[in-house]
Every structure is written in C-alpha cells, then in structure tokens.
C-alpha cells in the first residue's frame, strides 16, 4: 500500500476528510451528521494517513496524544451539563443563546459543546486504537 501516489495524496485526503468531518459535526443538529459520524470520519482519515505514511507523521500532525484528545472530549461533554445546574434545571438540560457576532447570529448551545465532546472522544479513542495497531503492525 506504500505506493508513491497513495503516499503523496494521503495527507491531502486526510486534511479534506478532517475538514469534512468538522462540517458533518456542526451541521448534525439539523441535517444528517453529528459527533459520532464526524468522529468516525476523522478517525478513518488519521488511520488512512497512518497506513500510507507511517504512524510518526500522524502523531506529529495531531500533536496531542489521541487519548488526551479523547479525555478532553469526555471532560467537555461532562462539563457541558454543568451550566444547566447553575441555571437551576437538571444536569445536561439544553440551554440556548444567540449572540450576534459581526452581524451574524450564531446559535450557541450546551448540546453543541456536548456534541463536540462526543466528536473528540470518538476521534481520540478510535485514532488511538488504529494508530497503536499500526505501530504494532510495523514494529
């Protein structure tokens, strides 16, 4: 699988897939998509990159250890439930706010952060699995 074409194109494919995965994540509330799917797409992107170019470039590219990313995601998802407790409603109740940033109304909500948390957990955990297996495979 280490063909020149594959190796050359893999970084671009990966970059595209990661961007696409974020798109899928963010549109997930109203259209098909969401954290789980987005996370899986990004994880497959990194897995492909790993197969093509080896694991070390992938580790350098994502900078953080995959499990740190997953841990951060879990923390984010758990914390996304806290504001509702401050507001006096049960844990994880959705809260919405619509601040206007530069004439554009942005819909911010706790489920958004929760979904980002889900995304990061899936990306982190599954990339971690794939990369460690690939390392095993090579070494």
């Amino acid at each position, binding site marked *: 699988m280490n063909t020149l074409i594959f190796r050359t194109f893999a970084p671009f494919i990966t970059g595209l897939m990661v961007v696409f995965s974020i798109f899928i994540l963010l549109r997930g509330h109203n259209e098909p*998509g969401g954290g789980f799917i987005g996370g899986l*797409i990004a994880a497959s992107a990194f*897995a492909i990159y790993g197969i093509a170019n080896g694991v070390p470039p992938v580790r350098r590219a994502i900078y953080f250890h995959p*499990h740190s990313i997953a841990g951060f995601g879990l923390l984010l998802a758990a914390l996304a*439930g806290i504001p509702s407790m401050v507001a006096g409603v049960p844990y994880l109740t959705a809260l919405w706010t619509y601040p206007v940033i530069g004439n554009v109304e942005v819909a911010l909500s706790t*489920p958004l952060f929760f979904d980002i948390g889900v995304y990061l957990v899936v990306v982190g955990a599954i990339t971690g699995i794939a990369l460690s*297996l690939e390392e095993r495979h090579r070494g």
Partner: protein
Amino acid sequence: MNDTQIYLLLPFAAAVIAPILVRFLGEKAAWILALFPAAIFVHLFGLVEQISNGEVVTGGFVWVPSLNANFTYFLDGLSLTFALLISGIGTLIILYAGGYLGGHKHFGRFLSFIFLFMGAMIGLVAADNLITLFIFWELTSITSFLLIGFDHNREASRRAAIQALVVTGGGGLALLAGVIVLQSISGVSELSLLLGQGDVVRDHPYYLLAFFLIIGAAFTKSAQFPFHFWLPNAMEAPTPVSAFLHSATMVKAGVYLLMRMNPVLGDTVIWETVLPVFGTATLVIGTLLAVRQTDLKLMLAYTTVASLGLLVMLTGFGGEKAIEAAVYYLIAHALFKGALFMIAGIIDHEAGTRDVRKLGGLRKAMPITFAAACLAALSMAGLPPFFGFLAKEEIYAAIAHPTFWGVSITLLTIFGNALMLVIGATVALKPFLGEPVKTPKNAHEGPILLWAGPVVLSIVGLVSALFAGFSNHDFVSPMASAIAGTSVEAHASVIPHFSLALLLSVITIGLGVAVYLKIDQARFAMAWLLAKIGWGPDKGFDQFISGLVRFATWITHRLQNGRMEAYMTTVFIFFGVVLWGSMIYFDELPNVPSFPVLSFYEWGIFTIAAVGLFSVIYANDRLTAIVSLGIQGFAVALIFMLFGAPDLSFTQFMVETLSVVILALVMTRLTLNKTDARKLSEQLFDACVALLAGSALMVLLLSVIQQPFDTALSDFFTSYSKVVAHGGNIVNVIIVDFRGLDTLGEISVVMIAGLSILALIRVKGQKMRKVLKQ
C-alpha cells in the same frame, strides 16, 4: 431530635473518637471514654421515675416512610432496664478494658468496636420500628464478630468469630422474615403498636410461622440448645468482651426479644411448651458441660448458657410470677456474671493462667478481687441478702406447681441451680482458698481499672437487694409489667420467710455443696461421658461448613468447567428454549407472514447481505473472511440507507471501513485455520443450537412486528425536537439532548475501550508471561 435520642446515639460518636484519644492518652483514655456510657446511664436513670409510673418515652425520625422503615424508639420498663444494664456495665467494661488491654497496639480499635457494639445494643433494646430492631440486631452480630475475632492471628479466634456470625447472623435472617410476617399480619410496623395487637396475631393462620421465625432468632442469639455451641467458643475474645457481650448484654438480646414478644406471641400452648422445654434442656446441658471444664472462662460461659436457658424457660412458663422471677434473675445474672467474668480475667491477667487446677491461695495476694468474688459468688448461689436470693426465691415460688409439668421442671431447675452454685464456688473460691500454688506469673492485686468493675457490680448486687423496695418499684415492676402486658406489682423481700420456695432453695444449696466437695470426680465422670458421645453440635458446625465448601467446589467445577464452548452452548440452548417455550406456552407465535413485497434492488441488497454472511462461515483464508465481513457490513449500511436512516448508514459505513482496516492489521499476525477443525457431528450439533436460538429470535421479531406499535415515545421526540430542542435532525437531538446522559455514559465506554486496548498493547510480552506464571 430530643435529648434522649442524642444519648442513644452517643456510643457511635465515642466509637469514632476512641482511636484518636487512645493514640494520645494510651490506656488513660479509658477514664475519659467511660464518661460516654456513664452519661447515658445517668440520663436514662433520670427517666426511671417517669417510666415506673407507667409512662413511655418515644421519639425518632422518619427514614424510609414508603417502606415503613423509620428510626423510632420507645422506652418502657423493659427497654429501660436493659438500657441501664448495658450502659452501666458498659461504663465499667470500658474502665476494665483500659486495665486489661491498655498496652495493646490495637487498643483504640478495640474500644471502637466495643462502643459500636454498645450503640447497637442500646439501639436494639430501644428500637420501636421493627426494621430498626432488625438492623440493630444484625449490627450486634457483626460487631460481636469483630470483637470475637479481635485476635485474628489465631485460628481459634477466627473460627469462633465465624461460628458466632453464622449462627447469630442466620438467626438475624429469621428475625427479618419474622418481623415482616408480623408486619403483614398486624399491619403495623412499630413495636409499641404491635403490643396491642396480640389477639390479632395469635388468631392469625400465620401465627405459627411468625412464632418459629422469632424463636429461631432468639434461640440462636441467646445460645439455646442446640445452638449453644457458639457461646463457649466465643470465649476466644478478650475477657472484657466476654464479660460484656457474653454475659450481660448480647446473648440476652434473644431473651429480650422473647420478653418483648410475650404480649404478642405468648399465652399460647406452643409458646408455653417450646420455650420451657428448650429452656430447661439448655439449663441442664449447660450446667453439665460446665462441670466438665477446668478453664475459668469456659466454666462461666457454660453457666451463662444455662442461665439463658433458665430465663427462656421462665419467660415461656406462663403467669405473672414466672415473668417476675425472670426479671429478678435477669438483673441478678447480669450483675454477678459480669463481675465473675471480670474476676476470671483479673486472675488470668495477674496469675497468667485460667486453669482452675493450677490456681489456689490467691486471697492474700489479691484481697480486693477475692472480696468482690465472694460477693458475686454468694449472689450467684442465691444466698441472702443478695439479689440472687430474691431471684431464686421468686423462681421457685413461680414454678413449683403440684402438676407433673411443674414438678419435673422444678426438679430439673433445682439440679441446674445446684450445679451453677458449684461452678460459682469453683470460680470464685477455689483460686483464692487453700494453699498458695505456684502460678506462671507472680500474682498480685491488679490496678484499680481492673478491680473497679467487679467491685461495683458485686456491691450493686448487694445494695439492690437490701433496698428491695426501691428495686421492686423502680425496675422490676415496670419491666415485668411491660413483659406481661398488664400491670404487675413485684414485692420480693430479702428477709427469708418460711415457704416452699425457701425449702427448695435450701435443698439446692445442700445439693450444690455436696457436689462441690466431689467436683473432681464429677468432672471426670462428665469427661468420660462426653468422650463416649464423641459428637456435638460444635463438631457438627465444622462438618457443615466443610461440607458446604466441598459442595460449592463440586458445583463450581461442574458448572464452570473452563471450556468456553460449553458455556456458550449452555447459554444459547437456554436462550432458545426459554424464548420458544414461552412463546408456545403463552400462544404468542406469529401468524404465517405473507410473502414480502420488495423492490428488486431491495432484494438485491438482502441477497448480498446473506451471501456475505454465509461466506464468513466458509472463509478459508483471512482475506476471504475480512472481505465477506465487509460485504455484509456494507449491505447493512445500505439497508439503513433504504429505510430512512442516513445517519446510521453513514456510521455503519465508517465503522465497517475501520473494522476491515484493524482486522487486516491484526490478522496478518494471526493464522486462521484453513478448515474448521470440529468434527462433522460437532458442527451439526452447533448448527442445531444456532438454529434453535437464532430462529427463536427471528420468530420473536416476527411476532413483535405483528403487534400494534406504540408510537408514544417516537411522537414525543418528533414533536418536541424542533420546538423545544431547536434541532431538525431528530436522531441527533435525541443523542445529544433528550438522552444526553446516556450518551455521556456511552462515550465513556468508548474511552475506556480505547484505554484498555492501549494498555493491552503496551504490556510487554515478557512481563505478561511473568504475570501469567504467577
């Protein structure tokens, strides 16, 4: 929260601070800690006047009202006398423990256990709610387990502790069942209300069930024959424990329960048969076994068994006189037996042995102990002017009826009492009288912490009898009234007056003295007899436990034989049989479905899925296996797509891709056996099992889809997704909003799986082999 409640819970506070105090003050902490039970005692003593006038003190708080389990207490004559004995003797025991175990490295822990026990015991006698009663009852079992096993480095201690826990804990389960039965019979959950429901309970068809459960609990706790064996073994505990738990308090919990239940369960033929028969049997057997012993503590332990038998007999004998006698004897016994246990401990502590054959002539070395021992022994022997005398007089007055029943019980009681007198004399007099004998340690008087307890108890035994009018009015009458359920007026007097009872007392003493002079021969005869019998409940307990372990081992090896496919086969056969069986039994089989109408591409995808599926089975090499697995996975993704689930379809695609990738990565290292190595018959059998379980699920699903569908939940999500949760993708809204907590749990699982895989990969092969070798 009122005063009394705080006092009732005080021991638990003491249990917490005891280890800390001991760390700073050593054995002197006992002086401070003794203030806790003393405070309880003083407070309760202040209630005596009120309660002797027939009032009750109640209170508590609501705990689990829906289950009728509340923390409520009520104090009447019975509870109060018990609570006074527990806190009063408890105070002395704390001091005594300071002298006895002062230097022990776990002294703080020991005191903590003792206080926990004290709190449980006071809670038990004060409990109003039946569930509270059960909880404190079990707590006394558990704390006594801890105390008996205190010296856990010795096997004998461990065995005694386990034995006590098994026997009394088993009784506790009977109590739980018993109180639930009583609750359902009477409809009330408080003892104070239950006491008025006696007639309802006695006429109920479940009366016998409640009766046997309650006496099961009481007999195990109070060491009645044939459950008596755990009590002597519990003498492995340090002496303060024996003096506290196994004379004055815990073992009396069973007697307390019987006395408490007397107005509810008593006054029936079975009550007045079973209790006297077992009580008298325990009395006789206990004293006979006591004669056999040479260890001071064991002798006392067996006489405790006997005394408990006497109490049970009196409680069930019937009539106010017998109850009065039981009350007198209970108080007298707590006083003199507590004192004698502590004296045995002092002798052990100062002379280095508890063997009565190696002791003698200690009166010069230990004059105070000797004096206390004499007072206690005289009370035990039932001589005037001691409290024991009142008890003995009342017993004989109550039971000496000119009927066959009365006469036979009286004769056996005389026999038992005479032997108890012998033991009392042996324990209290033999070590002190006669020529001084060389003891392992050079005996001398112990510190005040040690002898304070027995001296106080012995003097109380004397004073309470001298002021019998006060004792009768303030303690005996209210307690006897509470047990009898009607007002009882006790008026025993310490001045002997000529009666049948006095005559019987004299006979008892005469018989006792005669046996005492021949004690060595009597002991020899008993030893010979027991050797002849050779088997007892104690040995039976060991056989029972080892039998249990063997049975458990056998059944474990049968069921868990270590072959995975056997487990799997069992599970799936069971699964299939349960599903098929219940569907057939309840006539829930689906109608024969009509032939499905599908478009050609749907047929095509279904066929692809099926082909992928079967080629997984027949895959001969890893590439085929991976590819066929991928085929069925993608087919499933397409099915999701066809039926309006783009999210699922997408997820399935990604997951199948990743599965294929990691499978490919791992499988290059794993060899897949070319052929299925199972024999054809095994393959057929497995196929049948798979057919059985799989078809059951298939039929279940067919039957499910023929039922009308309840759309309530789906409608809820559909109609509120946009309005409330501001999301158009209902599936995503359910995941991140409506059921967010579930998702949080699920991503935690993903995270944990990732971490475990990392750990598995990181563990080096060498290290793993080393771990496995261990």
